[in-house]
């Protein structure tokens, strides 16, 4: 089986953004994602959506191009106004054609 390089894109965002981010990921070329609920704090100290839900962590494996597109969009659309962080980790995957 073939192994190739891809990017694991991880986004941690406040609860209110979950649906939008998922829609963004799909629209910008991600073939799938994994979501989980997480807790934490950051520089902005925002840690507020106690009742509307915990923060969401989204992971998706994508090509370099798609990763760049998603990061560019997330940065432009959300960084300034919402509590979001995003990072890339290089990964090696089987069946790279699926990502």
């Amino acid at each position, binding site marked *: 089986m073939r192994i190739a390089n891809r990017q694991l894109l991880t986004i941690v965002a*406040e*609860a*209110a*953004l979950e649906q*939008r981010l998922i829609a963004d990921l799909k629209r910008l070329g991600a073939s799938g994602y994994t979501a989980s*609920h997480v807790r934490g704090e950051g520089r902005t100290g*925002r840690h*507020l*959506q*106690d*009742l*509307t*839900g*915990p923060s969401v962590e989204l992971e998706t494996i994508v090509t370099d191009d798609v990763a760049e597109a998603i990061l560019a969009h997330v940065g432009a659309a959300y960084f300034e*106004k*919402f509590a979001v962080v995003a990072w890339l980790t290089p990964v090696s995957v089987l069946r790279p054609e699926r990502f």
Partner: protein
Amino acid sequence: MTLTLLLDNLLSASVIAFVVAVIATLARFDLRLPDALPAILSAYLLFAIGLKGGRSLAESTLSDLVFPVIIAVLIGIATPIISWAVLRSFVRLNNIDAAGIAAHYGSVSAVTFVVVLATLDAQGMFYEGFVAGLLAILEVVGIVVGLALARSSGSSLKNVLAEVTRGRSIALLLGGILIGAVVGDARLAPTDLVFVGLFNGALTLFLLEMGRLAGERLREVVQAGWRLIAAAIALPLINGTIGAGLGALSGLSTGGIAVLATLAASASYIAAPAAVRIALPEANPALSITTALGVTFPFNITLGIPFYIALAQWLS
């Protein structure tokens, strides 16, 4: 205002659980419930409220509903505007923050609603079954009008309306109402053990969590400034009085008026924060949750509700 009414309310399991949780949290005890539990309890409470409202809907006629619904819409329009005006002029907030908080105060707190129903039940006072529907109306209209005050160019108001209406709080409430109405009182009896019998216990547990959150916010309340704190007490009184006054015109029973007044006076800290966060991200979310949860909610469930009930009795 009868002293017994005040004491009965203050000594109810839910209110005492709230107060104890606040104190314990301030004393740095860890009262955190397991992660999913508050969400489970809130879903249960909303659905059960809907069911209860829906099953009594069958006993109402359309003419019973018309005026209360119209009045509810009017209240939903009036309270965020009044709140916004007070927040702009007296508290001197900027437009975005004021509109964000106004959306919270225009909307309603389902938990406060539940507490007033429990108090009325304990006092043996009648109220119309369809008040759960009025809750749904006020929840949605209040948020939309509040956001409109910011003239936000972000999400169009139609999107916000759709998002709020389909959001978990309203969806569970409306779903419960629909199911309750279709299934009807008699056939719902087998489910009563869960949706009626467990209700007060679930509410008590939920208010433990509310108290914990309010306790955590209390430190921020002090930082909010005396004007905002004063507004967080004045607004429920003003809005509650308007709600009672308009409610008295709608032909509702005394209990119904009390419920409407309480709804008008309550501030949302579940549905509104999510909607405002998306539509008005520049609004400071700490301000709105802190005042709604840290000041207005405790005020309403301890002193507010007895006051609104007394007001309703006086107006009848």
